[in-house]
């Protein structure tokens, strides 16, 4: 299972990659904003997306909307500091399947990923 991680913070990408490897997902590709995320997605093989919201150039919400315009099925998990109810609802309306607020525990990430993968 190839997972695309889109986050402008290299530290955060490492934390997510580390958590994923602990729960058995080691095939990972990275993007540092929505724009590079779309490029990586275009290269094919991605079966799940974990994206941040606040990023330069193209933010996570715009990225999700663009992805949903091309692919309605791919599971998308948003991992962000945006904790306001309106933000969560806006993300869900844009097409996010699930939502994690930073800081998160590895257990939360695992639970959300597993629920998305059914």
């Amino acid at each position: 299972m190839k997972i695309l991680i889109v986050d402008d913070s290299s530290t955060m990408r490492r934390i997510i990659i580390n958590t994923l490897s602990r729960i058995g997902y080691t095939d990972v590709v990275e993007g540092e904003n929505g724009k590079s995320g779309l490029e990586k997605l275009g290269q094919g093989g991605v079966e799940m997306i974990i994206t941040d919201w606040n990023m330069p150039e193209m933010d996570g919400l715009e990225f999700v909307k663009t992805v949903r315009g091309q692919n309605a099925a791919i599971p998308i998990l948003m991992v962000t500091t945006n904790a306001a109810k309106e933000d969560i609802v806006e993300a869900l309306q844009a097409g996010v399947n699930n939502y994690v607020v930073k800081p998160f525990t590895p257990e939360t990430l695992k639970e959300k990923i597993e629920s998305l993968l059914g």
Partner: protein
Amino acid sequence: MDQSEIDALLAGGGKTPKKAKTAAKGPAVAAAPASTVSSEPHQDGNGHVISELDTVTSVTERESNKVMDQLDQISQLVSRQQQLVTDMMRHEGAQSPGVQKAIHEVMSASKEIQDKVFEAMDLMQFQDITRQKLERIVHHLRQIHDYIVDLLGTGLKSDTERPSISHTIAQTGTTPDENKAHADAVIEAFKSQKKG
């Protein structure tokens, strides 16, 4: 800021530290006559504070990655140690109950170290959260700066318009469990509303 950056700063003839002193007098910008404010935005106190904050965020990200590198190395060393101990357990000479007990204790301690390393890695999330909070401060500083420039009628706003990429992080700082419960409740409500 590391030693090489300090050295570079010092090599620059100490001009930048002088700017830092000016920056400390930030509020004086508002009281100054319009003619003194009409310098380039990054030459004044506010602009300097902004670039300082930018530097802080990039340096902390780089340093956080160094910490992550160290933690990765510790993790790999512990894994190697666990492998060696596992091999040792199969050795003929290690079959006595006393040795086996000692080996199990070593394995247990290794697991604890590994868990603590993972925990420390997870705690590094603070860097991203702090960075976003600083970006928000930078955004507000820019707005204040532009407001003052408008007020004084110089017409010189920040040269680079960089909207805050941080939306609403007011609720960060709560525990991960509280965050999860909050997000889950909103998701559930959204799903129910959609079904209804």
